[in-house]
């Protein structure tokens, strides 16, 4: 009974995680580049 709903949730969770990773990676890369240019 629960499996279709659970399946839907996991696909939206994947794009949520994708965006969190993209944003975090961008900010981290920018900060590291700035600090490395010392």
């Amino acid at each position, binding site marked *: 009974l629960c499996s279709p709903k659970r399946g839907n949730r996991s696909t939206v969770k994947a*794009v949520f995680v994708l*965006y969190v990773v993209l*944003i975090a990676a961008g900010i981290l890369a*920018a*900060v590291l580049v*700035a600090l*490395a240019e010392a």
Partner: protein
Amino acid sequence: MRNFVRENSLSLFFATIFLTTLVGQSFAGQHAYSAEQVEQGGSAVSWLTYVTSAHYWGAVMENWQSEFLQFSLFIGATIWLVQKGSNESKPLGDKGLESDERQRVGSHAGPESPLWARGGGLRTRLYENSLLLTMGVIFLATWLAQSLNNWRTFNQEQRERSEAQLSWVRYLIDPDFWEKTLQNWQSEFLAVGSMAVLTIYLRQRGSPESKPVGAPHDETGSSG
């Protein structure tokens, strides 16, 4: 897989064009930066050198921070401020945080409600503001990252001109930083204001960003 794409086409489309344009920016930026360097008697830089430079990341973060500021302000302002006739506004009588019943929190939460919406207390207070808090934190982090990268670039240009270097704190009040910041903010504010106002009279059939085509001009927030 087909199901995954069908259910997430909007976010996958934007992630794809985001990454494509980010890479495009790096190549265009490398060529523009190299041309500038050569013109000033220096040498062209490789793509790898450019994508690990403060020049590139400063430009990227400048735009990121203004987008996250735009959405943070939009999320926050639309709690209390309204625009009659706009699809981007709540109905005029719904100003404010709204009742627990309407927001389905605490004892009004349903069995499918998120766990943190059910209990009340600090966790619910935190969860009911989590979107604005997260967007706000991302804005501050990207603005900080912009300032650090712009500062490095500014000092590099100062060095090349044999002029004085600035500390990061001093750079934060320099016109160079504020010109780069405000040029991005002004365009975001105009775009948000335009969305709020243009949706009063204009329509796009099928888009949730528009009122239904036949909705009256003074109907507010009808696509919710």
